[in-house]
């Protein structure tokens, strides 16, 4: 990750879920700086390091999403993505011959999901504002939580 961050300092976290054969899917959170930024990072992941040549799924999120928690990632995908607009599909890219799902041995597709908040230019619509509890209320409940004895 430090090597990646050297080239792309906007990358906040980078996660390869082990259940995705350790390299076939990457979830990347970024500090988004301009429209289309997620796509640049997608192509960066695919092209910068040879190790990620076989990473056939790339999901890009904003920095407020914990890429190591599926619940968070699925929330970002289902609330910040339009499937038709925000997916990038490429065919005939290098794939490891172990991947029997690719149409030809050694050659297959890649897909990128832009699950970041959409900016002016990327959308014309008023965008959703995430709900957050106030710090004062959180603090007050922290203070009485033990006394409540709920869990």
């Amino acid at each position, binding site marked *: 990750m430090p090597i990646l961050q050297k080239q792309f300092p906007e990358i906040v976290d980078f996660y390869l879920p082990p259940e995705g054969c350790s390299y076939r899917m990457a979830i990347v959170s970024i500090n988004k700086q301009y429209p289309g930024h997620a796509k640049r990072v997608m192509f960066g992941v695919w092209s910068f390091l040879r190790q990620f040549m076989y990473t056939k799924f790339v999901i890009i999120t904003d920095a407020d999403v914990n890429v190591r928690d599926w619940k968070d990632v699925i929330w970002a995908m289902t*609330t910040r993505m339009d499937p038709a607009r925000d997916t990038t599909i490429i065919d005939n890219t290098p794939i490891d011959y172990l991947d029997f799902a690719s149409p030809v041995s050694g050659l297959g597709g890649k897909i990128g999901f832009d699950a970041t908040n959409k900016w002016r230019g990327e959308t014309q619509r008023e965008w959703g504002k995430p709900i957050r509890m106030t710090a004062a*209320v959180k603090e007050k*409940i922290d203070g009485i939580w033990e006394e*409540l004895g*709920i*869990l």
Partner: protein
Amino acid sequence: MHYKDLRDFIAQLEQLGELKRIPLEIDPYLEMTEICDRTLRAEGPALLFENPKGHSIPVLANLFGTPKRVALGMGQESVTALREVGQLLASLKEPEPPKGFKDALDKLPLFKQVLNMPPKVLSKAPCQEKVLVGSEVDLSRLPIQTCWPEDAGPLITWGLVVTQGPHKSRHNLGIYRQQVIDKNKVIMRWLAHRGGALDFQEWQQVHPGEPFPIAVALGTDPATILGAVTPVPDTLSEYAFAGLLRGSRTEVTRCLTHNLQVPASAEIVLEGFIYPDETAPEGPFGDHTGYYNEVEAFPVFTIER
């Protein structure tokens, strides 16, 4: 297990360790949300806030916070039994005629259950023991939560809205959130394709310019609450479906303001009308999506009783 009203369900949940009483004073403004949110994420118990700040009526929350409590509310013991409820629904939607005498006998239990479906109308009901009329109506006496910091105001989150279309004999039950805007007015936020909105639309065509009768039940037995959120076939009343879940007919009573029927054991019933052309901008409110949603105009429900 079947429950005759919400209090019965609360008592049973408490025995099972599925409900926690909170005697501490808690503010319905934001504080309850924070406690419920933490409890829900930890798959914790239902919560009964016995001492809401500024109010004397307790607040029941996180009631259906786990699949197990949904199953219990439907009268089942386990989550897997919910599949049987689904199969029952499917067979009611497309009933198959019995194939011969033996098959007819096998289907008897199902038909016996269907007999439980029509609601039973009581002339005297607990929900009408105490009645407030006209200027006595004051929603600020109810401990209605304001859930999130940027919400437009207090919100009735789980009111069972009872409506009836002009061409239908069945009563429709739906859960639509209701923003409180006055001591006797809330905004009825139903999406255009939902049962209540369709009933209202048909009413306006048949009775142009006339007020549309509505009743809202707060705190009913669990089968009725869950019946109202289950996608039952459009021709079937949620009362009938609740009767099926419960294994006994839903007890209802006639409203004092109009002819709608409401669950007899409801803790609180709001009766009134939507007056033609009265709408108000609703929201924003923090939604189940995790975001605040946009402001949109919806009809205003005026509470008479």
